[in-house]
């Protein structure tokens, strides 16, 4: 039996738009370190694999292209990468995977930021990569008129396919640059050789020389290779172009099936793309890809109580979450959710990324009722065993692509002597 993996996706007061109005919610604390520390420590007490932190370079909005006119929902958020960093030294085991947007940002900065998060957590870092076709985000950077122009699309009209492809291609290049920069230092580059006065062996640092339509990056990184070699790259996917992105660029994919059959189909769709286009160029070889199913959870041990609570939340929000959510909205008992987790695992997923509808209530329900249920069934860990996030997800530490060539170079040089 393959191990079951559980992630929790943290976002504001929870994934239900009315979550912030629950009596246990802390809507005034959403922008404090204390709030997030409490949540992530709870997730860690529940032995979860990792937390992801949602983010976007725009204000939350029900309108995909511009801010909305609402005043009844949570608006405003902190930068997720810094938030993950703030949690690094106050947690010990859990993986920290903040979201970052590839479109508009310089790959050099997030490369060293995630590398540093990995150093600071001693190998527990990842990054959830997303691309942006939001005209309001483009207007805040002022450098991509073709994206800002999407503001003029009629409602329901979709962006040109070529533009969508281009944005995903840029995302793929962005991840490629992150990975190259992480590899640009060999693990043993720092030699501190007092006799010759050399701190590093400069032959073990490498330029990355990436050239693409949207950016060129010379390298090497200013930051040493991270403990995991390459921190985890994660991405969420609903559509074929994004499946391809996950297949080409990610170590961990999040999918949104609504039943066992769809889980099977989505897993196959991504895995097929992986075979067509392996994510790992330069002959490094195939790497495993982990896939989790996303589920919004309303959880209660009393049968019927969760559905009742969801109905109450939907009424407060004025809309049913199931109508607007990209992912399945599950309202039920821990035993029912455990059944679903195992069924989807059987369908080919490696586990679930749970989106608590209400924080902290549904997070507590996950850690204090779902996890014990899974432990009783013998399908979930009872203690943290592994040191790094990659080890926990059974993803090997990537071989450094440049170390291979530099070893070959050294051999050549020595042969030439």
């Amino acid at each position, binding site marked *: 039996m393959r191990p079951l993996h559980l992630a929790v996706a943290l976002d504001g007061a929870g994934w239900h738009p009315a979550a912030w109005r629950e009596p246990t919610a802390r809507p005034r604390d959403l922008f404090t*370190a204390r709030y997030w520390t409490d949540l992530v420590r709870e997730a860690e007490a529940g032995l979860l694999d990792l937390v992801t932190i949602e983010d976007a370079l725009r204000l939350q909005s029900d309108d995909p292209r511009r801010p909305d006119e609402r*005043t009844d929902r949570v608006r405003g958020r902190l930068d997720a990468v810094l938030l993950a960093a703030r949690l690094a030294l106050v947690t010990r085991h859990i993986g920290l995977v903040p979201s970052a947007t590839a479109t508009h940002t*310089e790959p050099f900065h997030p490369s060293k930021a995630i590398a540093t998060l990995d150093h600071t957590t001693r190998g527990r870092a990842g990054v959830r990569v997303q691309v942006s076709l939001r005209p309001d985000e483009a207007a805040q950077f002022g450098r991509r008129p073709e994206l800002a122009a999407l503001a003029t699309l009629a409602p329901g009209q979709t962006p040109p396919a070529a533009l969508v492809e281009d944005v995903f291609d840029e995302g793929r290049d962005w991840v490629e640059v992150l990975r190259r920069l992480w590899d640009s230092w060999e693990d043993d580059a720092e030699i501190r050789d007092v006799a010759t006065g050399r701190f590093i062996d400069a032959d073990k640092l490498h330029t990355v020389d990436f050239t693409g339509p949207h950016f060129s990056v010379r390298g090497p990184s200013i*930051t040493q290779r991270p403990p995991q070699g390459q921190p985890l790259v994660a991405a969420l996917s609903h559509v074929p172009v994004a499946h391809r992105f996950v297949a080409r660029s990610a170590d961990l994919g999040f999918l949104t099936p609504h039943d066992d059959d769809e889980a099977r189909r989505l897993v196959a769709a991504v895995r097929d793309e992986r075979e067509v286009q392996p994510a790992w160029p330069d002959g490094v070889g195939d790497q495993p890809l982990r896939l989790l199913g996303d589920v919004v959870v309303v959880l209660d041990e009393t049968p019927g109580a969760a559905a009742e609570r969801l109905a109450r939340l939907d009424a407060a929000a004025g809309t049913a979450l199931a109508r607007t959510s990209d992912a399945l909205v599950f309202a039920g008992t821990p035993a029912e959710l455990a059944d679903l987790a195992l069924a989807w695992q059987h369908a080919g997923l490696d586990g679930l990324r749970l989106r608590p509808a209400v924080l902290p209530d549904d997070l507590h329900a996950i850690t204090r009722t779902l996890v014990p249920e899974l432990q009783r069934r013998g399908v979930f860990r009872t203690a943290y065993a592994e040191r790094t996030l990659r080890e926990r997800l059974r993803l090997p530490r990537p071989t450094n692509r440049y170390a291979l060539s530099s070893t070959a170079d050294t051999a050549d040089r020595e042969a030439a002597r």
Partner: protein
Amino acid sequence: MSRHSTRKRQVHLAAHFPGVNNTTVWSDPASGSHIDPDSFVHFAQTAERGKFDFLFLAEGLRLREHAGRIYDLDVVGRPDTFTILAALAGVTTHLGLTGTINSTFNEPYEVARQFATLDHLSEGRAAWNVVTSWDAFTGENFRRGGFLAAEQRYERARSFLDTAFELFDSWRGDEVLADQATGQFLRAPGPGAFEHHDAHFDIAGHTTVPRSPQGRPVIFQAGDSEEGREFAAQHADAIFSRHGTLEEGRPFYADVKARLAKYGRERDELLVLPAATFVLGDTDAEAEELAREVRRAQVSGATAIVFLEQVWNRDLSAYDPDGPLPDVDPVVGEELISKGRASVRMYRDPLATAKAWRERAQAEGLSIRELMIEQTARQTFVGSPTTVADQIEHLVEAEAADGFILVPHITPAGLDPFVDRVVPILQERGVHRTDYEGTTLREHLGLRPLPVPSLLTTTVGAAGVSA
């Protein structure tokens, strides 16, 4: 007790994490990691134990090169500034967190968001040392490339900072009601609106981070040019200067303080904080001996030749560092042997520098290495703890500085002897706090709080909407 009339001029102390240059003696057996989190935690917690105002991190966005190779004689490699500062906010409670962030290879929307976040996550302890490096060499790592002409860099920096300030102020402070009873989260829709249109930034939208505890990070400036000083007088809360001696410090201090009036600012609204190195001993004589050893460790024969090559701009590897200076003249040109170092641009007239150095070496009978030690490695403070405390107090009293950003030469424990031995003397004399009186960095620096926009107007109707 009337604190204001009788209190002596207070010394502001800060700690610079040892950098990727030859001040840091990595060859010392006590020298630790420059990337392991324990080094940063130890350093930050030591500074906080000494009741320092802040920790300071430098940044360079491309590894330095010399003669076409990555320079390997100094420490190489450093963490991402924002990431390590945010992590340290979790293991400190009062210490200010100052990060050097470039205004050329970043976008205002992102940087404003990151600093506002850091200020939230540290509960008001963030500071931004604005640097304006512009070179094409660094630009090769970025989308932006090395497009910026030298004369435009302060113009863009000014525009960048103006824009960032607008973004920090785009949340007025009263937007979030979070009223669970009525279901109203926001006072009005679309908070954080901004719009900025000029030659450098043509942007509009909404920031996502509500107004942070300090309103914006404390602003540092480190450039020394005429434009840099003017930039600081107009925008900065503090200057990170190189002028740590009485002779250089006093005129610099007087110069920048005098520039404040034209911007309607008071003299105490801009602090002058030079970088300072130190070596302590039980006696002054012991400290002098130790300092000599440290200087020789900082400037090896190989390092001395490299320093010389930076001015001569040619290969001098055949010269003996323990011998006389070369007779050949520097190669004057745009293409420099050394890339990615701020110091290289200081030698604007290499022929004159070479002449002056030759004359000094001849007059004092110095070898290449001895001259380079004299030119580059003199420590700011050398002596017993009492002597060093005297020196610091005197320089602040004489208005050569408002305090010092201390740069230890050992990572990460180099600050410990200063905190253990000099700080108690300064505290005893009443010139350094025995405990933090405030919680924000602005308070530690004695800067007045910034006005909160939502408290300035009585109407709420126009919240967050700019024309």
